[in-house]
């Protein structure tokens, strides 16, 4: 039994079968990559996992509990955090506040007023957020207005916001898209570091094969909404079906 079990999930958008009978099992404490051409349904699958979309049929179990029918914030509180394909951050707030909010969310679990406390008094949370910003090398940008940062920085910030919650399952939707090579390598190192430090399961959607083969322990290839193969990175590299459906296309 994996920490995440997806069984027979179907999702239609009008006439388009975005997900067709998806079965996927992600083992605890592994990095599982999901690859596939554009429009294969990768983001749609993540949307189902975080409660943004409800599938037409099928089941999604996280750690033995169904996530279907739960609200996104409840699913997050179960231990699933997500980095989006286009960064979702609090643009009007500064970098530090962006990281503090997930800290509050994780500590409080649900709505708390805190109307007469002051943010600077939350020493523990501030320390935690600062440490996270040091880890992602953004501490010097802590007072910066989040919306005014580069796209690469926004992605790193979003990753920090997810990681600071210490999720059990981290979903990453093309985390290095639009990043310079150096930033991409930093991201790989950061994810490896996190992985080495504590127990975490990651599902990563990625186009950059360098990232995929540096991190992934298992790879699922998705094409036209259906998993084609699932195997170890070594086997995926040589798989004829994969070459044809995805790698061949991506490289030429």
């Amino acid at each position, binding site marked *: 039994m994996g920490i995440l079990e997806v069984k027979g999930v179907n999702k239609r958008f009008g006439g388009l079968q975005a997900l067709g009978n998806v079965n996927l099992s992600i083992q605890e404490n592994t990095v599982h990559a999901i690859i596939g051409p554009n429009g294969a349904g990768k983001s749609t699958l993540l949307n189902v996992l*975080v409660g943004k979309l409800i599938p037409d049929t099928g089941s999604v179990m996280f750690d033995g509990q169904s996530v279907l029918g739960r*609200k*996104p*914030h409840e699913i*997050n*509180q179960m231990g699933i*955090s*997500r980095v*989006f394909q286009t960064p*979702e*951050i*609090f*643009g*009007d*707030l500064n970098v530090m*506040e962006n990281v*503090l*909010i*997930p800290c*509050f*969310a*994780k500590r*409080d*679990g*649900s*709505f*708390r*007023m*805190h*109307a*007469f*406390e*002051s*943010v*600077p008094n*939350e020493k523990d949370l501030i320390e935690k957020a600062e440490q996270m910003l040091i880890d992602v090398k953004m501490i010097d940008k802590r*007072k910066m207005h989040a919306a005014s940062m580069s796209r690469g920085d926004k992605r790193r910030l979003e990753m920090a*916001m997810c990681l600071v*919650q210490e999720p059990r399952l981290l979903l990453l939707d093309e985390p290095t898209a639009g990043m310079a090579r150096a930033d991409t390598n930093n991201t790989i190192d950061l994810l490896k570091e996190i992985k080495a430090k504590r127990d975490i399961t990651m599902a990563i959607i990625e186009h950059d094969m360098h990232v995929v083969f540096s991190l992934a322990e298992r790879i699922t290839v998705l094409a036209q909404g259906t998993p084609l193969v699932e195997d170890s990175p070594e086997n995926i590299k040589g798989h004829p079906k994969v070459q044809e459906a995805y790698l061949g296309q991506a490289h030429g």
Partner: protein
Amino acid sequence: MLGLDKRDTKFLWIVIFLTLATPVLLQPFPEGSALAQFNAGYPDLMQRFAIFGIFAIGFNILFGLTGYLSFGHAAFLGIGSYSVVWMYKLLDYNVIWGLPLAVIMSGIFALGIGYISLRRSGIYFSILTLAFAQMSFALAYSVLTPLTNGETGLQVYTSDKQILMGATEPNSPHFFGIVMRDNFWQPNIGGWQFTFNNGYYFCAIIAIIAFYISMRIFRSPFGMMLRAVKSNQQRMSYTGLSPRPYTLAAFVISGMYAGLAGGLLASMDPLAGAERMQWTASGEVVLMTILGGAGTLLGPVLGAGFIKYFENIFSKINDNVLHGWFSFLPDGLEDFVVAVIHPFVGKGWHLTLGLLFMAVVIFLPGGLVELGQRIGRLFSRKAAEDETTADVKPAE
């Protein structure tokens, strides 16, 4: 001090000073001078500054922080007024009974109206709040006449029980014997006439407390969450927090502020009418907040003061006054100038205010506060240029 950092404490002291000194500051022109027209230091107007300041401060907690634009906050203003007048009728003229009730009642109504309206956002939220306010207005105006006295408005009659009324008790709103409409000091200093009024100081002290509370909310984790709601609700959900309870809490708090303001209106003048709930009154607080600077601490207060000043001072400038000012011009020219200015003053004050509002929205999206900041920066740059040795720190 008081849970604020150094900068905020200083800011609060300045606000306290300005509020308490208002009867002097708004009376810059000596009595009888041509410009005495523009003096605003009389009790009735100053009370309005403080009361509508409270209304706008509360509105800003909802609109400025969460971005939810309510078009129905006047409903709570009305509920506050009715609550206070009912306490006059049932108990006595001491405002100590009515004001807490005004806050509680408007809070309860805000909870119900907010719970339903906040199921939608954007324009649909605004329309829902408007619909609720217009319904409240209709109820107060006709359906609930036994409670509101309909068109006439709710007031105290000699036949009312007033069961707590003492034999020597004042026969108008008071706070433990301090009669609101009385002045405690009216010095005439070298041609300047100042009026220190009980009612104004009562409102002023409550306004300072209201301002302090809003300051604490702005700086609190709760305030940060409200700004997060405005910035990105989707991210908030995927971070594990539902935005709804935060927006509802902000809605209820701002409703209670509105109720308090309505209660204070009835504390200055023991009347409550349905027109206080009309959509124009709801729109006015929106204008105040945007004009002053939504999302800033002081902006709504400035906006409220500005609009109330216009309403009361500009509206009094009639053709006679204008002829007085321009009498030095040749006759034909005088008439011409008066004719040109005429549409913008007196009954035309709305026109001037409308033009000003447009100018602010187009050129100063941050409102009057932004204007102040720009002027401040201009001066600090000049000062920095003059004093080359000065260590210039970048503005935060």
